[in-house]
């Protein structure tokens, strides 16, 4: 077969969010691909410049549904560092608990999605059912399944009651047992092994060279984890281990993520059992002194970087977000060349892409209410529609 262009996206059943890979394939092998990430672009970074610290946190939370707490915490801790604030220990513990619960539900979601990409729907159903346990806990604590709204500059907004703590602790043992079963399954299930082993392999040198982060990098033996390298919240007080693997393929990434779920259960249990008493917030000043900070956070997908610059007012001058998925795209583009068509969903899913995080820059913040109606017809075509009307500050 001569070279054929196969459009994967922007609408495609393998993708959970719109992205356009134009794959140029020769038979079933991929020759090269073009990437277009603009579909989820919403203008958040510019919009963030117009909002004060109280209003900007809900905006930044909505960069992404699954890593919402990561963005909010990264920003909040950056601003707190600039202001020189020390937040109370109970707030740190609560932030950590929510962060690790978020990691758990994100990894369980990923496991189901990876199984679905290879047609193994049974594992998909099972992992998502277990994920409901985590979601129930999060909903009890924060009122929401995503976008928890727990953070503010100076601490957390909601406290955990004793009954919530007890209910959360009660759910952990069954989750731990299920994770044990998944470890077993991943190591022994023939179709999973056959579809995951040897796919999308990234050596340690390549991982470092391409700047990969998160479980994708740790699966190749790269030993970087922001929670240990640049400790924040309570990660330097709680006993936990960094999980790495040496395979560097999709199977290695599966192992790392399941291992991380087990570690998260450990951290959550420790934090819940040792939750210190005390206030949950301090009064933060309205404005932040002039300065710049690089706030790094280990989101479920990898290292999230917020570069924040303030200028003495109650707004940021610039927040530059580099998400983990963006860092991992280079490795995907490199890995996909030479692989089979059938492996595209598996390889792309293996970096756990969060396209909402990837495409969040620039403005659409106009004073003159320029609005666009989008019909379903137009959505079906491969163009992005500009939503205007972000609202003046």
């Amino acid at each position, binding site marked *: 077969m001569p070279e*054929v*262009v*196969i*459009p994967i996206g922007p609408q*495609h*059943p*393998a993708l959970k969010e719109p992205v356009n890979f134009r794959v140029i394939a020769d038979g*079933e092998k991929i020759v090269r691909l073009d990437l277009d990430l603009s579909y989820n672009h919403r203008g958040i970074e510019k919009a963030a410049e117009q909002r004060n610290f109280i209003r900007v946190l809900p905006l930044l939370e909505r960069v992404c549904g699954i890593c919402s707490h990561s963005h909010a915490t990264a920003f909040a801790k950056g601003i707190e560092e600039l202001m020189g604030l020390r937040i109370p220990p109970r707030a740190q513990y609560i932030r950590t608990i929510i962060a690790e619960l978020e990691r758990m539900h994100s990894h369980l979601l990923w496991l189901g999605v990876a*199984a*679905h*990409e*290879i*047609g*193994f*729907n*049974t*594992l998909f*159903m*099972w992992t998502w*059912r277990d994920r409901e346990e985590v979601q129930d806990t999060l909903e009890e604590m924060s009122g929401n399944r995503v976008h928890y709204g727990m953070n503010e500059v100076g601490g957390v907004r909601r406290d955990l009651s004793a009954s919530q703590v007890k209910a959360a602790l009660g759910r952990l043992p069954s989750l731990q047992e299920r994770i044990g079963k998944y470890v077993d399954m991943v190591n022994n*299930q*023939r*179709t*999973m092994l*056959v*579809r995951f082993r040897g796919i999308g392999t990234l050596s340690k040198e390549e991982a470092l060279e391409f700047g990969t982060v998160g479980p994708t990098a740790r699966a190749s033996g790269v030993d970087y984890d922001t929670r240990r390298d640049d400790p924040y919240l309570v990660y330097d007080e709680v006993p936990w281990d960094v999980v790495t693997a040496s395979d560097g393929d999709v199977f290695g990434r599966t192992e790392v993520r399941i291992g991380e779920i087990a570690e998260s259960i450990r951290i959550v249990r420790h934090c819940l059992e040792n939750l210190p008493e005390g206030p949950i917030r301090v009064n933060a000043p309205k404005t932040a002194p002039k300065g710049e900070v690089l706030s790094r956070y280990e989101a479920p997908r990898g290292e999230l970087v917020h570069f924040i610059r303030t200028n003495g007012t109650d707004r940021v001058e610039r927040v530059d977000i580099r998400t983990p998925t963006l860092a991992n795209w280079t490795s995907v583009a490199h890995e996909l060349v030479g692989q*089979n*068509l*059938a*492996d*595209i*969903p598996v390889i792309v899913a293996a970096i756990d892409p969060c396209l909402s995080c990837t495409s969040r820059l620039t403005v659409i913040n106009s004073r003159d209410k320029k609005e666009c109606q989008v019909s379903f017809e137009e959505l079906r075509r491969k163009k992005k529609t500009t939503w205007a009307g972000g609202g003046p500050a």
Partner: protein
Amino acid sequence: MISPVLAIIYIFIIPGFFFLFAYALFLEYLDRRIIARMQTRVGPPLIQPVADLIKMLGKEVIDPAGVDRALFDAIPLVALAAVMTAFLYVPVVGNSPFAFQGDLVLVLYLLTIPTIALFLLGWLSRNIFSAVGGIRAVTQLFIYEVPFFLALLTPALMAGTWSVSEIARWQQDNLWFAVLQPIAFVIALVGLQAKLERTPFDIPEAETEIVAGPWTELTGRRLAAMHLAFDIYLVAGSALVAALFLGGPLTPWTITPVWLGWIAGFFIFIGKTLVILLILSAFKAATGRIRIDQLNRIGWKYLAGASIVQLAIVLVMNSVRVNV
């Protein structure tokens, strides 16, 4: 041959088309229910496949630009006709009244038509996803068809006849072929799963890779016809394997009077096909999809190899029996 009145009843009502449609929809319900329970879900209610069929018949038929409409209408119907006809030659209540020497070959031929239909649909759809799916369907056909045919050949060899009904009757006096030729039984089941394009062999319609493969551009009554064709395919395939390996609707002793034999045979037939469905559903729930090149390797190395080994064993057993 049977009287024309009985033939009409046999073809159109029971165990003919009316029963066939009902049983096909029932098996679809059972399949989805079993898999759902294995996945800790609830699963659809009994009436669901009927509701789906009626809904699909009522939907708008969309013709992609430049597609040959007459062919697009005809091909699902041809596939449907093929599997319905194949079912008539499989013993359901005793011998099939249309049995003749060589109807095994006819049934196998008719049962390949749905796959060819999928390939044609994929090719005609003028859509890259469908074309890739169609090509995968035919590639898969080449891979599993050889072991599958060989596995169905060995019972015929041992029974010394080319008629499905007579092979079933042969097992009445001897053991089931599932016991005598277990390798062939396993290959037949795996081959059936591949023919029906169910996980792990649903490569041509891999949802996460090529949208829906050759099914992508089927809508409305065409989709209904093709969907029903594949449901009936499941019944016909299970019935064939049940007849060849599990003795069909017959028990090791003859039941008199004849009409009681028919009723008993009917229920035995349903029981045996349900067993095969259970195996196929468990197979589908417990595995993920493999890639076409991996299927290629497994098919030629293991399936074809095993079927040739089975063939050799049967030839040896035949000569031993003749001498004894």
